[in-house]
């Protein structure tokens, strides 16, 4: 497979996954906004965290000084200048798919293409919440459908693997990012009683679509420790960080036929290092600030793995669009 095409597949998967995750976060926040009777200050903080998860708070602050929900939705869904806006993720993902079109299933392309045209149909200036809500649902469905097409019709070769690795890395980073933002919040408000934190951890579970799965496993009480263990080290939940890292490891190993070669050594080393850290981790023994450090470090590792991965398979130098999306995670 051409390196340029492999690169497109990898970024296509990341962009689809990112669009899905950001849609879910935004959608969960919009629902909470309707329910909660928060004070302004609380509401503002809640929006801050959503911006930080879906984009970059400092970039947002460069352009806007207020936290008006309409402005934020506009920024996260449609803004051209926000490289991680939903419109951009879909557009980039579609471009990626386009330049790999001859080797991906045509249903995959059609699905992404249709989502793109539907997103174009929403007026970028005069939208209403109903339209945005419909778009968020469409994006999530698009992601599910594309994954279904990939699972049910692609041969398990390098093409498939590059898509999968993009997806797992993106997912792991997003979960880490969500937890990182929530830990930071919990730490800042440590003077408040513990119960008050309930909402953060509930939101974290909702953001990764893990609330139902969590409830089945743990008593219907939501505690920081349980949520963190669940989302970091649970080996069965498909959005826990460890689950994703294990799948990156398995995918690379499969593609390399189980052998570590000269050129792939660095990549194996990098993933293994992360795996070992997980094995030695005792989430329950860690303090909030230590967790924050761990998650920070993990995000850096992910970045690093992405770079080594690109180097190992001669993926192209990032173009403008991928530079934009990569910077999201470089703190």
């Amino acid at each position, binding site marked *: 497979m*051409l*390196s*340029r095409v492999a690169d497109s597949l990898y970024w296509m998967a990341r962009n689809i996954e990112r669009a899905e995750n950001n849609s879910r976060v935004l959608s969960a926040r919009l629902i909470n906004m309707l329910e909660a009777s928060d004070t302004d200050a609380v509401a503002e903080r809640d929006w801050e965290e959503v911006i930080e998860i879906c984009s970059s708070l400092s970039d947002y602050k460069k352009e806007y000084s207020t936290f008006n929900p309409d402005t934020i939705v506009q920024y996260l869904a449609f803004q051209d200048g926000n490289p991680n806006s939903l419109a951009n993720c879909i557009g980039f993902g579609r471009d990626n798919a*386009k330049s790999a079109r001859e*080797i991906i299933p045509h249903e995959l392309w059609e699905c992404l293409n249709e989502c793109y045209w539907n997103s174009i149909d929403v007026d970028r200036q005069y939208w209403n919440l109903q339209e945005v809500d419909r778009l968020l649902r469409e994006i999530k469905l698009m992601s599910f459908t594309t994954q279904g097409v990939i699972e049910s019709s692609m041969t398990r070769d390098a093409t498939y693997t590059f898509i999968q690795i993009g997806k797992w890395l993106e997912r792991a980073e997003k979960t880490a990012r969500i937890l990182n933002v929530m830990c930071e919040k919990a730490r800042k408000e440590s003077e408040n009683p513990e119960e008050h934190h309930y909402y953060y951890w509930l939101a974290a579970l909702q953001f990764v679509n893990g609330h139902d799965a969590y409830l089945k496993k743990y008593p219907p009480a939501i505690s920081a420790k349980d949520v963190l263990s669940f989302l970091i080290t649970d080996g069965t939940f498909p959005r826990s960080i460890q689950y994703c890292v294990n799948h990156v490891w398995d995918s690379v190993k499969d593609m390399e036929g189980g052998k570590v070669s000269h050129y792939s050594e660095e990549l194996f080393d990098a993933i293994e290092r992360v795996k070992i850290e997980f094995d030695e981790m005792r989430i329950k023994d860690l303090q909030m600030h230590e967790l924050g450090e761990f998650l920070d470090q993990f995000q850096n590792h992910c970045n690093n793995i992405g770079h080594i991965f690109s180097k190992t*398979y*001669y993926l192209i130098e990032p173009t403008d669009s991928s530079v934009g999306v990569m910077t999201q995670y470089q703190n």
Partner: protein
Amino acid sequence: MLKQYDSKAFFDEMMEMDGKPKSHYEQFHDILNRFSVEDLHEKNETAQLSFLRQGITFTVYSDKTGTERTMPFDFIPVIIPPDQWEQIEKGMKQRVKALNLFLEDVYNDQQIIKDGLIPRELIEENPYYYKEQASGLKIPNDSHVFLAGIDLIRDEHGEYRVLEDNLRNPSGMSYVFQNRFVMRRVFPEFFNSHQICTLERQLSNLHEALLSHAPENCEDKDHPIAVLLTPGSYNSAYYDHVFLAQQMGIELVEGRDLIVKDDCVFMKTIRGLHRVDIIYRRVDDDFLDPEAFNPDSVLGVPGLLEAYRKGNVAITNGIGNGVADDKAMYAYVPDMIRYYLDEEPLIKNVETYFLRDREAREHVLENLDKLVVKNVGSSGGYDMLIGPHATKAEIDLFREKIIQDPAQYIAQPTIKLSRAPAFQKERFYPCHVDLRVYVMGGKKLKVLPGGLSRVALKEGSLVVNSSQGGGGKDTWVLKKGSDDSC
């Protein structure tokens, strides 16, 4: 259904003057009458949407927001009876064979010039004549033309004539397949009752033809590695490139995916460099190799031409083909057919006057109001006079131009392009059509049955070009009795 339809003074593909369908359209006409206008409208919408969904679009460069358009599709097919098709097929093979021999000659011995058939300056002054880059090469099968697109029109008597040869990068073949695909999906009713030549085997024919171009120094001649070189996803014909690469099962590469080392061409893969033997390029000559052509080109591959000249890689369509398909050379193609093949052309040209010739020039200058005058060096309808539609001032301007530089211009009679019914916005009306026929060259020449029928959907318009409101139609070649050859 077509009661209000008036075929007037033009040749109509489907209808007779008396309002009855032609015999090879009778069956189609019968089935068409079973639908209501509402049904047809709905089916038409479904067809248009299907193109957008599948992303079968071309790029419009001028417009920032909506840079992608689908080519409008019209569901009334152009139907060609078997005898007529046989004639076209023979004529196209004959023409491309002669053009190929001409290219081989002009880049080697130039016998046709020595014999005085074609003026030397016409070749040497041609901007697409790449003497230095393309002369004296041993080309696999002597095949300069791997894929040709020959544009045909029909005059007011229904006679097919060649309007233009495209021997460089003819596009649109994917539309032939997609038009058929969409048509089958939206109007299955028509296909049960018609015996139509299928397109199914054509892409393997194309693949076979491509692989027959393996270069002299190919390491494994039984399994050469072929790629399609595209300028990239922003090119207006990108869908065409995707489709052909996918259907032939070859890699779709961009210039940056290729590298030349020790005069051999390699593609950059996730497992390192892989040797490439055959390049079906959809990049113009000028942009192929910055070392040999345009030094500013970023689309190309440095060193590619040297690899080609050494016989380490095949490039097709051949470099320098442009010398054979421009407007001035067009007029000589019938002579080429007589010269190289000793045959009379089966499909005629549109009559063309060379204005360098004194007698012809005088005739043309007297009849400018009836003729079309074209600059041999320009395309896309620029620097062109359509006499019957021109003002007196425009005619006078061209009179001056011709007197000043007669060799730069040719003149042709104004042809009454044939028409076919189109159904858009819930009604039928006549539109001008033309037909691009695709000829594939390898060990021998093959013709894709039918081709791309283009239609000027704007009423009265003669422009079939998709960037100016032109659309496409499915083209059916009817089978002859129990003929299974297509």
